[in-house]
């Protein structure tokens, strides 16, 4: 019983758990979509970076070409100054026409390692002013192409200059174009402008140093640009500036950025869906298999039952045939036995009791054996044609007492009787015959030395009558065969005693069994006879 409950619980636990196949499907698809996510995401990031780099390079070229226009702007001024032999007056008059706003144009000559302003138009410079050694060092390298000077950003404005020198100018002279801009106002980015998708910061130095910020298309609080940025270096002659670019929005497009997540989400959804389908199919197949198993087990059980029933029928037919033969034998024996018994009686009368030694042994043997033969004939008749039970209310303990008195134990056999008061609806004489048979068997089993115990009690809806002996017991292989007719373990038994007992007990709707075990010596025969429902004490029992 316990084992069956365990099996049911295991079955339930298995039913609650997802099938390994469904889990595998879910894991494989989820894994594939995760891999797809990483591949697509990596690809999108790579594309993004490539596009950003490309854009930064383009912006860099754009900036360089934009500033290259300063060269020609200064060229005409330089030509005029050269033609005038370096006249500050000519420079001043031409420069006034070119300069505007906060821009300054300056003509400077090298005097003993530093440059001195010869003529200045616009703010920031004055005639005769010596320029700093650092500026002078830059100016000494100025050539035909406009060279930028250092960019200085003071937090609000950036100032810078471009310079051209020989051969466009007379030897030892340079022309500066100095200007000031506001980096965050100078370039308002609109969608129409190129590089509208980028945040760009241009620094007048080889690295992104805030103090050299020249122009930016980002808000001041967005600087310095961090994260995914591209860096390019616009070149002005020998000078390298730094351009830092960052994408305002995804350059590869929002779909390219979202596609990996879409793939991941769809993949996980698909994983769950397919796993669910597999689980459902698997459960169905498991259920079908279980049903098939149950049906198979039922069929096997039915087959076993049928075989058992068939065996019972065959056994029953065999016993019936046996019984019919026994009946014929039993009856046919009766007349010859009667004649022989009568003849022996007459002989005994004639020869005396005891008879002459010559006859006594043989006569006694003939008497003994005819008595046995008569008992066999009696048993055969009783077995084959049992009387229908004539039932009445019988007190079982009284039957036990009567039988024990009628069949007292042999000397040296201890008899123990423990009979409770149990009323059964049964045939009194047949009950007595059953008990007489069992008690006689028990006496014979202990072989004149041992103990026999007779007990009667109520067990549920039945009266239980048990006869137990301390004899050698019954071989386990023999078991219930002792109740078959002509089966005997005694050398002088007819083999019908227990068969008759079973006949009578079964005629009462009861059951008889023999118990014998190697642990406990002896045999125990238990008879159970139902306490008939007509029993009035039983009806009272139901009410209470």
């Amino acid at each position, binding site marked *: 019983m316990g084992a069956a409950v365990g099996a049911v619980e295991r079955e339930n636990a298995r039913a609650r758990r997802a099938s390994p196949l469904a889990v595998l499907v879910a894991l494989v698809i989820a894994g594939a979509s995760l891999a797809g996510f990483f591949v697509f995401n990596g690809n999108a990031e790579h594309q993004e970076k490539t596009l950003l780099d490309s854009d930064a390079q383009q912006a860099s070229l754009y900036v360089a070409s934009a500033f290259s226009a300063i060269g020609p702007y200064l060229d005409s001024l330089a030509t005029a100054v050269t033609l005038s032999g370096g006249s500050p007056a000519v420079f001043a008059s031409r420069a006034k026409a070119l300069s505007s706003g906060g821009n300054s144009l300056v003509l400077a000559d090298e005097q003993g390692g530093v440059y001195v302003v010869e003529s200045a138009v616009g703010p920031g410079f004055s005639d005769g002013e010596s320029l700093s050694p650092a500026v002078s060092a830059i100016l000494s390298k100025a050539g035909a192409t406009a060279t930028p000077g250092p960019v200085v950003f003071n937090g609000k404005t950036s100032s810078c200059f471009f310079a051209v020198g020989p051969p466009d100018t007379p030897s030892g002279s340079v022309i500066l174009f100095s200007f000031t801009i506001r980096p965050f106002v100078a370039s308002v980015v609109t969608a129409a402008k190129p590089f509208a998708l980028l945040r760009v910061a241009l620094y007048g130095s080889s690295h992104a140093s805030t103090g050299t910020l020249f122009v930016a298309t980002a808000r001041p609080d967005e600087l310095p640009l961090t994260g995914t940025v591209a860096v390019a270096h616009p070149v002005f002659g020998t000078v390298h500036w730094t351009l830092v670019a960052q994408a305002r929005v995804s350059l590869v497009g929002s779909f390219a950025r979202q596609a990996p997540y879409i793939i991941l989400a769809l993949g996980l959804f698909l994983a769950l869906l397919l796993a669910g389908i597999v689980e459902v199919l698997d459960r169905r197949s498991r259920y079908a298999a279980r049903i098939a198993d149950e049906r198979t087990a039922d069929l096997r059980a039915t087959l076993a039952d049928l075989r058992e029933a068939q065996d019972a029928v065959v056994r029953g037919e065999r016993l019936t045939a046996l019984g019919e033969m026994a009946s014929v034998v039993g*009856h046919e024996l*009766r*007349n*010859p*036995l*009667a*004649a*022989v*018994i*009568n*003849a022996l*009686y*007459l002989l005994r*009368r004639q020869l005396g009791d005891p008879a002459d030694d010559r006859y006594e042994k043989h006569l006694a043997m003939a008497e003994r054996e*005819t008595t046995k033969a*008569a008992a066999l*004939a*009696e048993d055969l*008749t009783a077995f084959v*044609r049992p009387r229908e039970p004539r039932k009445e209310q019988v007190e079982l303990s009284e039957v036990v007492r009567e039988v024990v008195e009628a069949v007292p134990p042999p000397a040296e056999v201890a008899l123990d009787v423990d009979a409770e008061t149990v009323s059964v609806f049964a045939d009194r004489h047949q009950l007595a015959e059953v008990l007489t048979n069992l008690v006689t068997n028990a006496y014979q089993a202990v072989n004149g030395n041992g103990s026999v115990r007779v007990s009667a009690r109520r067990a549920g809806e039945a009266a239980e009558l048990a006869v137990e002996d301390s004899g050698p017991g019954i071989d386990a292989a023999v078991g219930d065969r002792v109740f078959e007719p002509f089966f005997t373990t005694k050398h002088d038994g007819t083999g019908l005693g227990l068969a008759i007992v079973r006949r009578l007990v079964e005629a009462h709707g009861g059951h008889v069994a023999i118990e014998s075990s190697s642990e406990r010596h002896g045999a125990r025969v238990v008879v159970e006879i139902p306490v008939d429902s007509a029993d009035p004490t039983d009806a009272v029992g139901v009410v209470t």
Partner: protein
Amino acid sequence: MTGETDVLVVDDEPDVRSSVADILRQAGYRVQEAADGNEALDVLARERVGAVLLDMVMPRCDGMAVMDALDDPPPVVVVSARRVEAAARTKLGAKVVDYLEKPVRPEVLLGRVATIVGARSGG
């Protein structure tokens, strides 16, 4: 009525019949034998009989036929190899004083006869 008979033994088995008759004669009874129902009825018509030991299963005229033919028979003890069923016992009623099953121990048989016709001094 031409004579007096203590016991009429009716049985178709000669050995059984003659051995029973011998036992009864040795006990001092006057005994008549009949091999079937017809012979038994002849004896009963002829003589006064104290008791009848009647076998039931016999050829030609059986025990039941004998009982049917007699309105007021002497006391009958049925001695049969087969148990006489309850229905037959009911039909036979009080005419039968006892039923014995073969083989009957001679002591038992003598005891029954003695209670019916009285003990004899023979044997």
